[in-house]
């Protein structure tokens, strides 16, 4: 923290996640081919690409839920061999435990013996407030809207205080207005927690809205095509000139036609 300026550039100086020459194939498809990338500490990194480009496979490999055929993945300098509490994951379809209340879901990771929190109840309360769900502590997931479910998903992943937050198209199933709000909230949370975030999406707007850096992947086989540092002050405006410019560049990189 010595020479700290708060700009995102200084925060990604130290490498937090290193993916080296990772390949992974399923029966007939090459999901990942010789993928290498690195994510700095405290960096918000988005991975975009068409479906089938292996972005979810890559995220699951970083999580330790999927075993690459070759190559290595280091998180905080340690090789990833299995899931661990140093990494939190937010799932596309929430993956909440339906038989647990909001509080019960958030506490799940705190109730493992590995958790060293002095007061788990207070920690759970703090997280409920962080994601703006006070008053819904005792609600079951079925009683929540998609946006609220994902807030629980985020709080649950944050509970064991992971160093890295992995997000797999977390806002893909919520409506556009809720998504905008969740973006702002996520950036707020990130500003407070300073976690390293890897966020997978197929929505270029979303990536440019959130990321310090956007990694563009191509499909079949899944490879890293290029990387864009998004140098736009937050909060960002979708209509701002440079925002639109980045979106257009990435869209061109992906070979997608202009909308309309």
């Amino acid at each position: 923290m010595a020479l700290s300026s708060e700009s995102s550039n200084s925060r990604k100086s130290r490498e937090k996640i290193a993916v080296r020459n990772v390949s992974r194939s399923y029966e007939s498809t090459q999901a990942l081919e010789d993928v290498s990338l690195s994510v700095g500490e405290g960096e918000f990194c988005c991975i975009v690409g068409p479906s089938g480009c292996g972005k979810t496979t890559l995220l699951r490999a970083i999580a330790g839920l999927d075993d690459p055929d070759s190559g290595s993945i280091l998180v905080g300098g340690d090789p990833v061999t299995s899931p661990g509490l140093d990494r939190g994951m937010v799932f596309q379809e929430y993956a909440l435990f339906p038989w647990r209340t909001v509080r019960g879901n958030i506490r799940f990771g705190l109730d493992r013996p590995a958790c060293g929190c002095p007061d788990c109840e207070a920690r759970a309360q703090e997280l409920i407030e962080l994601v703006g769900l006070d008053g819904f502590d005792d609600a079951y997931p079925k009683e929540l809207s998609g946006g609220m479910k994902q807030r629980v998903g985020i709080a649950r992943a944050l509970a064991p205080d992971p160093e890295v937050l992995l997000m797999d198209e977390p806002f893909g199933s919520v409506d556009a207005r809720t998504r905008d709000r969740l973006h702002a909230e996520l950036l707020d949370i990130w500003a407070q927690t300073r976690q390293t975030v890897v966020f997978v999406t197929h929505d270029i707007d979303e990536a440019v809205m959130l990321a310090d850096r956007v990694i563009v992947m191509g499909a079949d086989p899944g490879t890293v095509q290029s990387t864009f540092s998004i140098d736009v002050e937050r909060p960002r405006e979708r209509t701002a000139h440079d925002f639109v410019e980045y979106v257009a560049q990435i869209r061109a990189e992906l070979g997608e036609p202009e909308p309309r």
Partner: protein
Amino acid sequence: MSTRTDTRSDAPVAYDFEGDLRRYLRGLGGLVAFLLVWWVGAMMTRPSYLVPSPLDSVRAFVDLFATTTAIVVPVSGSSLVLPTGLAHLTETLFHYVPGLLLGASCGIGLGLLMGWNGALDDWLRPLVRVLRPIPPLAWIVFAIVWFGIHHTGAAFIVFIGAFWINFYAAYGGVEGVASELTDAASMLGVERDLSMLKLVALPSAAPQVLTGFRTSIGRCWMIVVGAELFGAPGVGYEIINASNNLAMATSVAYMFLISLAFLCMDVGFRLFEGRVLAWR
């Protein structure tokens, strides 16, 4: 698709009094119509014992509680005096309850383990395929030669019936556990298989397990009466005993009693189920 908003979606639904009333009246109508048909049928049938009339049956039912009978409590060997109907129902419960509980526990236990552990599944699946189709009552011959046809033998038959229903419910329930839930749990620090079974698989399978148990409550009544027709003491035995004396109304009274006992258990268990599964 985009109707999801950030509010709770469980808006209270206006309670439909009229619809409920209509349903109750129709149900009542069905019962009355059945009683009429039964009554007319009984009046027209000769000799009269072939179809006892509703009134005779009710009278016989009331009579079940007008006299008392002494029964022997298994294990302790002490004797217990109860109104006759209740006495025989209690006799049935002496083998029904242990058979059901033990069979359900073993079935659920094995079902969970087999559904969860691939190797165990490989080992036991062919065996299960072979044993499963045997109707529980077919085991009566072994119940007789091993235990004698008394409480233990009847409990053994009930055990087998309860075992399979609960086994399949638990097995299917665990197999259906969403992989994203186990993924989420392992990201949150669940490492051991047993913890995963307890924290994720079991609660996730709970709806199927409970439905299985509720099914077995009913199925075991059928089985227990079957076992008693071979001579184990209880309401089933009384049905055949009464009919041997051509007291068909008494047989019907015991049939009522079984139906009543089942209804109480079913309703009770549904209430319990509703509480446990409030999250659904």
